[in-house]
């Protein structure tokens, strides 16, 4: 088999996976707190023949492989919802969430209250404060979440605020090492240690939308399709070439 087919195939495989990544970004264009992924490619050199007796050394063949999916960590646009339980994080920080599988992190600020009065995510996992889950009392109203993450309420007929906890905001020195788990959650992979976020601020009544840039994704999609078609055409030409060669060479003059 000639190298053209193999090199072409390596590119087509990566293009298919790149379209998968684009498709996932586009599918999550309305997912709160979603961060877009981007494929990163690398040249993969296969060593040529090592026999020194060849006249002129065989040259390396370079294949493509998708080395990584890099996460775009920019903050998505924030939308005002006026819902007291919606928060948008200003800064490179995450909310800590308690799940059955352990502590997870999220940027999705569409929060709810569960039957026990705990502050939870849309999936029902408790949002962690600096000292455990944040619990509201039945008579609490006018929930206020301050810039620093302090959650205060007016309890019953009280005139003054009661503090219900402080949101635990964490940041990561190497946020790329966070692992996407689905469900808008990240887990701290190896080499990612949560640290208290000092500079991050919380905006109540706003929600962070997905940071997927539709124009970019659409043009990337066109690029992928065109590249794929081109390689298909190239592979086809190569097949035709081989076909012609076989036909011509096998032609025995009568």
């Amino acid at each position, binding site marked *: 088999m000639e190298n053209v087919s193999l090199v072409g195939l390596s590119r*087509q495989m990566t*293009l298919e*996976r790149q*379209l*998968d990544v*684009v*498709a*996932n970004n*586009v*599918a*999550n*264009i*309305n*997912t*709160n707190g979603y961060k877009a*992924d981007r494929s*990163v490619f690398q040249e993969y050199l296969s060593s040529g023949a090592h026999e020194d007796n060849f006249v002129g050394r065989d040259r390396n063949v370079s294949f493509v492989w*998708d*080395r*990584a*999916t890099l*996460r775009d960590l920019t903050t998505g646009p924030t939308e005002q919802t006026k819902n*007291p339980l919606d928060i948008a994080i200003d800064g490179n920080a995450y909310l800590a969430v308690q799940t059955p599988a352990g502590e997870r992190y999220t940027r*999705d600020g*569409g929060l*709810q*209250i*569960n*039957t*026990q*009065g705990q502050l939870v995510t*849309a*999936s029902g996992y408790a949002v962690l404060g600096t000292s455990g889950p944040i619990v509201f009392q*039945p008579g*609490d*109203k006018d929930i206020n979440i301050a810039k620093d993450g302090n959650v205060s309420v*007016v*309890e*019953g*007929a009280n005139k003054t605020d009661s503090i219900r906890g402080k949101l635990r905001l964490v940041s990561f020195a190497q946020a790329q*090492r*966070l*692992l*996407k*788990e*689905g*469900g808008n959650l990240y887990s701290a*992979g*190896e*080499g*990612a240690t949560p640290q208290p976020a000092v500079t991050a601020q919380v905006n109540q009544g706003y929600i962070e939308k997905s940071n997927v840039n*539709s124009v970019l*994704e*659409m043009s990337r*999609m066109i690029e*992928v399709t065109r590249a*794929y*078609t081109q390689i*298909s*055409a190239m592979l086809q030409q190569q097949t035709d070439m081989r076909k012609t060669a076989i036909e011509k060479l096998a032609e025995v003059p009568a």
Partner: protein
Amino acid sequence: MQALYTAASGMAAQELNVQVISNNIANMRTTGFKKQRAAFQDLIYAHVRRVGATASDQGTILPVGVDIGGGVKTIGTPRLMSQGTLSTTGNELDVGIRGEGFFKIQMPDGTFSYTRDGSFQLDAQGRMVTSNGNPVQPTITVPATASGLTINAAGSVSVTLAGSTTSTVLGQIGLTRFINKAGLQPNGDNLFTETPASGAPQDGVANADGFGDMQQNNLEQANVEVVTEISDLIAAQRAYEMNAKVVSAADQMLQSTSAMFR
């Protein structure tokens, strides 16, 4: 090709998003209506190369991995239980709640439903009922000869009976609250019922202990904001279109593959 199914999940999600938005817009003039919104989450990821995996004997680890996501799912359509605007109607049996609480309504089968729609009527027996004829709790019966019906901030209903100069208190309309009111189940007719998610109902009276107060001659409008809904609708429509484009892109790629070797 994964991209086809990923984009299909995106189209399904946006279709649901448009459904939710259209229901909000359809109910923008419904008394006591609380708007919903569709909440989405990303689906599971295939970790083709896992981030943090050890890349060499020296213990270097991969700073980034290859994660291929599988699309989007709808996690829920939470209801936004914010206060709607009170508008004056001048009807003495119209009551709006300013603050926490729901009216408790007895259904024909004896169970209770809860509503923020305070457009009450009197039935043949003089009971205060909803527009569907179900009595508000506790039942308040207004005598036929009564006039000058007044409902105060605490929900106390008083009238002036014929031949009397002083007003008589007939009863007090109760309020009920839930720890997670967004977890109530909507049943149509502006009614909600309790669910395991909402928590048990806590009965009380208006203007006390954290409950809201009652405003006679007022009705609570829907909390739907048209501008938000329309811009959400546009965003949903465009997102749907873009997902459809991805489907056709994947289709085109498959087509060029199958056309490769004739």
